[in-house]
């Protein structure tokens, strides 16, 4: 069938294909902050029961472990290198990974994620293992907040860009949905949203969304300072509105409002976090969690390390 591109015939044809069948994949990030900044903190710390657990009705395949130090904005506790001084073990069914002792986090880092020096400071990029489908007129709801607010004394505003990459499901043409939010001192650490209009699929065909990129620009008003931004300063959460599961892609403890996950942990492809790709079995990478399955993450710092570290498990939900 040859369609005339100058008539509505093509539009109608494409619109009819907004409904697709097959398996739908959506990214999932399960993250918890393990805070040892209180010297009296119990060591080691175990994750909350509900965080690293599949709370949905479809199976989830976990493919990566990620970790990064929390950027507090305070010189004494923000040094990202201290991720080297935390040991982690994962426990499921009384079996431990990678060892029943706490192996240091850099030993998990088995994926090269280093972009150019001036890039990786401000950018996290994640190319999904499977593209997620976005129907026509669907949108992404992006919420984000700063780890520490914009300083009214030294900074004016910080712009955060969040971009989704993809291709048209029919036309196979590249598409990009980009939005941004300017944080000003009055925002503090409150949760803000990027207007969904930035991310609406206004085309006539579904999109295969293949990845996400987060970019944090340097603060305006910092004359003479390093003009590269700081990706560790932002955390965000994403939900697809329209088709799909309509669930947030992120899971955190209930004490974390908005299910926000640090932008540095979204950098599985290029970024600034420890990225551990789980081993595969029969060509299927990682672990399959059926509903209500999960595990416990335990973190142990070296003595006298008073930092807070994020640990996350990353994968995708598979919806038939």
């Amino acid at each position, binding site marked *: 069938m040859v369609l005339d591109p100058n008539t509505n015939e093509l539009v109608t044809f494409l619109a009819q294909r907004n409904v697709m069948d097959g398996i739908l994949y959506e990214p999932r990030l399960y993250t918890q902050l393990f805070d040892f900044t209180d010297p009296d903190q119990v060591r080691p710390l175990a994750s909350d029961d509900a965080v690293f657990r599949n709370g949905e009705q479809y199976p989830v395949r976990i493919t990566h472990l990620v970790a990064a130090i929390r950027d507090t904005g305070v010189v004494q506790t923000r040094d990202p290198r*201290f991720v*080297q*001084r935390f040991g982690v073990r994962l426990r499921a*069914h009384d079996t431990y990974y990678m*060892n029943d002792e706490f192996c240091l986090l850099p*030993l998990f880092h*088995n994926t*090269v994620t280093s972009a150019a020096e001036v890039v990786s400071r401000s950018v996290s990029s994640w190319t999904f293992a499977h593209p997620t489908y976005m129907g026509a007129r669907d949108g992404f709801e992006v919420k984000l907040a700063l780890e520490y607010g914009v300083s009214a004394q030294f900074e004016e505003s910080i712009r955060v860009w969040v971009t989704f990459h993809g291709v048209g499901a029919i036309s196979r043409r590249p598409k990009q949905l980009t939005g941004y939010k300017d944080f000003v001192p009055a925002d503090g650490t409150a949760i803000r949203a990027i207007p969904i209009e930035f991310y609406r699929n206004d085309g006539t065909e579904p999109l295969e969304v293949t990845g996400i990129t987060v970019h944090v620009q340097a603060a305006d008003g910092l004359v003479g300072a390093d003009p590269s931004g700081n990706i560790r300063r932002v955390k965000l959460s994403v939900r697809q509105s329209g088709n799909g599961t309509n669930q947030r892609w992120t899971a955190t403890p209930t004490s974390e409002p908005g299910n926000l996950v640090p932008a540095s942990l979204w950098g599985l492809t290029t970024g600034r976090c420890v990225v551990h*790709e789980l081993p595969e079995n029969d060509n299927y990478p990682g672990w399959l969690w059926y509903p209500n399955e999960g595990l416990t993450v335990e973190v142990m710092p070296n003595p006298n390390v008073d930092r807070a570290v994020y640990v996350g498990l990353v994968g995708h939900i598979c919806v038939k």
Partner: protein
Amino acid sequence: MFRPTPFQRDDDRFYYEPRALWSVGRVNSALPDQTAAKPAGFLTLPKEDFKNPSRYPIRITHACISPVGYLFANWVAQNPNKAAQYDQAMSSLGRMRIAIAFPKRSWIERVNTDVMSFGTVPTADLEPALDRRSGLFGISRWTFPESYLLPRKASIEIILSTISTYRTDDPQVDVPACVIVHERGGRMLGHGRWRRPAPLEYAPNVAVAGAAWPAGQTPIVGDFFANLNNLVANPQGQVFPPSQKWPSSDYNRQLGSRGLDYTEVQGFGVHIDQIDYDDALDKSVNGPGDIAPIAQRIITKGRTRDAGTGEQWWRDGAPLSLVTPTMTPAFVHKFAQPFELGPGEGIEVGLQPPPPRTVQPPDADPIIIASSYNVGVSFCGYAVVQDDCKKVYR
């Protein structure tokens, strides 16, 4: 991530054991020509170092070229009066040239090739976004191109050497290091057996004229800021002190195989916690740029105990950066097609230093300063071993 090929359980004929052939040398453009046909300072690394000494063929997958024994990674101070120091940091690797000939004098290129012109693969640790610090994670890693089959009760030994001290005030703070061996299989699909973190011992500052890099041929005198000791032994004369060994009892206690007849070893990683060292060195030495990773200053040995060929995976003394081609501070080239070295076959490697530099001091005549540089070269891969005994393990 580059994944090793899973072991084919119906393949009874072969198993694959990691191998690295390496050498370290110092090139110096002030040295006289070896022959009239070669440029000044051209150094041919010892052929014996790149010869396959075993009775099994070795399949080479990667080449690593690494600066060796440097305190600083790069120069950021642009001071013409300090041009003598120009080739005294890791980053001068880009001014080197290399010539490689495979068996039967098959040269990889007709002219001595710029080192950086070999295609490289991403292998870097992240930069820490902090001035002058060496790296974010301090990790070196080798994910084997082929899984290595390890029988039950056998163990792997990766040992790190002492750290050689410098003539300048080396901070000598604790530098803990640990090693992990990644295995495949089991309920969680994988497992890691590790040698717990322990501080590396420092070697004393005893200069021995003409002493060689361990198992190498050419004295290493370090960079401008300090003389790297040629000997890297502790006061007891031990390059690999007992405190840094990895007992087989400790390896086996961790039960990676969980009672299986054998486990698939997929690679190993080495973590060097350089945080305190970097911070202390930054305060004590007014260096020119980023502090270099210690992975190019310490040496290693690796082998299998109670199984395998019984051979060393590489000659003792290889800098860590030369035997970790997956993550390393070295330059890594991945061969498009792995090539084989039969028993007794070897590779020839020649190194050409940067040309001498002409320096114009203020109010004086120009002077010519020779360039010299410490560099190591390795070829990493695996031995293909015909296994007549594997049925015993099953």
